[in-house]
């Protein structure tokens, strides 16, 4: 019996350490594979947007003790820009919509419908991203291409970034909209939870001073629970930064062309890893794989940092709610 207990204790300890082990080993693996690219590209990895696998017919070159295809270049500036712009756009679209959704769910619908709506919102978060991408290609891209983008160009032509050629509907706007739809459930979920943690005394105190529902909601979300709002937004941002498939399908997946307007095609770090991996295996020097590993490493550091920060901030505000309870 004692041996069984010891074994069980050992097993649970092992299982509890498993997530840490997996995370550390993935990080170590990605870092290890990145080393040749770090030595080959140095800081230029971040400062150039040229991603070129080199000329196979010429002998490989040797720089800083590593071998790379002739004339090859691995710069992530385009992917970094694409990731940041599409994620920022997603936040700009998602934040006001999430705010309005949370207000509606919390203050304007009966409690029975509220539960139904929250479960629907949670279901949204579970839809596979490829389905968002498919919807983006079939519905969103034609809508952007034929209607919305020409209208925006006409109306906003004097605003920087809104003039210029319209190519296909795939690009920054499509990526931003798709990502926004994907992160709205995350932000709404955090906002609704933070709303629920506000003590009834505080809500009643505000209402008895003659606040309207709108004023109550606005104060709770943007002021009382603002740290939760920040946290939820960062969690959404974390998801947007790392999203791969849906963005790959609607971004246009370009390389070597920096965007000139909001209608331009783009590429993101996650989408680039997915789309360039196949061809990278043909690089006999292994440098393309190493460069994609370094790209993954950068993406991982950014995503993890944003997620950790979001969780800490969202968690802190919940504690603050309890303090006043």
């Amino acid at each position, binding site marked *: 019996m004692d041996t069984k207990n010891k074994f069980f204790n050992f097993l649970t300890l092992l299982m509890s350490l498993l997530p840490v082990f997996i995370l550390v080993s993935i990080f170590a693996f990605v870092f290890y594979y990145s080393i040749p690219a770090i030595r080959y590209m140095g800081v230029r990895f971040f400062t150039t947007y040229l991603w070129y696998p080199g000329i196979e017919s010429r002998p490989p070159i040797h720089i800083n003790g590593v071998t790379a295809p002739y004339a090859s270049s691995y710069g992530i500036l385009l992917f970094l820009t694409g990731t940041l712009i599409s994620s920022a756009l997603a936040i700009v679209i998602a934040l006001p919509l999430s705010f309005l959704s949370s207000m509606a769910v919390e203050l304007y619908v*009966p409690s029975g419908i509220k539960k139904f709506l929250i479960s629907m919102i949670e279901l949204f978060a579970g839809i596979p991203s490829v389905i968002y991408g498919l919807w983006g290609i079939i519905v969103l891209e034609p809508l952007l291409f034929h209607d919305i983008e020409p209208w925006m160009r006409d109306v906003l032509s004097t605003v920087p970034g809104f003039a210029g050629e319209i190519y296909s509907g795939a690009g920054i706007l499509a990526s931003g909209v798709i990502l926004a739809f994907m992160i709205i459930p995350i932000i709404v979920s955090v906002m609704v939870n933070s709303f629920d943690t506000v003590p009834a005394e*505080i809500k*009643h*105190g505000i209402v008895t*001073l*003659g606040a309207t529902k709108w004023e109550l909601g606005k104060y709770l979300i943007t002021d009382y629970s603002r740290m939760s709002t920040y946290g939820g937004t960062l969690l959404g941002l974390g998801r947007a930064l790392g999203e791969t498939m849906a963005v790959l399908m609607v971004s246009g997946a370009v390389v070597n062309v920096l965007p000139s307007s909001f209608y331009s095609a783009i590429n993101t770090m996650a989408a680039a890893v997915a789309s360039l991996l196949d061809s990278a295996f043909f690089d006999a020097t292994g440098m393309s794989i190493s460069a994609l590993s370094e790209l993954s490493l950068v993406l991982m550091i950014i995503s993890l940092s944003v997620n950790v920060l979001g969780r800490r901030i969202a968690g802190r505000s919940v504690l603050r709610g309890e303090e*006043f309870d």
Partner: protein
Amino acid sequence: MIHLENIMETRKLSVKAGQKTILDNIDINIYRHRVNTIVGPSGGGKSTFLKCLNRLVDLDSNYHVSGDIFLEGKNIREYSEIELRRRVGMVFQRPNPFPMSVYDNVAFGLRLQGKVKQHEMDSMVKDSLREAGLFDEVNDNLNRPASTLSGGQQQRLCIARALILKPSVLMLDEPTSSLDPVAKGRIEELMIQLRERYTVILVTHDITQARKVSDHTSMLFNGKIIASGEGVDFLESSSSDAMKAFLGDATV
């Protein structure tokens, strides 16, 4: 003979939550510039009664309210919820300062009303703090967080926050139940002072407190008013078993 003038009255006020009756045909008068006290054991419907008077009860869809409530002779349904709640202020059992400064707490309701000039707001905030008997204790730094005040000070801050809207009626729902005896005494003195300018409705299960401050008392028991009259002493002469049990418990 004192002339008593109604400021509020309820007629056949009943509240149900599902099948459970919380208030049953309450007819009660609230007299102007008096401390109108509702006493009774916990769970008797006292807080629900107060929440009916400013329609806070409407926030919970489980409650069904019937009957009429009048403020200044006009049915409260004829006021907007916002206007009603500004005219019938409320302070809760536990102090509920908002996580902001003393000044911002008091100014909160005023800011909701729209633009008020800064110097007017300063003056109104200070006046309200004076009325709540808190000004001298916080005047050195109105920007300190409200959470740094003692429990009694926080409760007087909540009273100041309600008073800045110049309500006709101020409802206090067991306002001293979480306070120490000294802080409790301060609030009781304050209630007596406030009745000169406001109508006070006090809900309490503390008969000793009612004896100190109440001008007119109603006993609410199991959702029904079982006695009502001037002062508190009339309760002692009641032959009701419920009353005797309550007074017996309350004086222990």
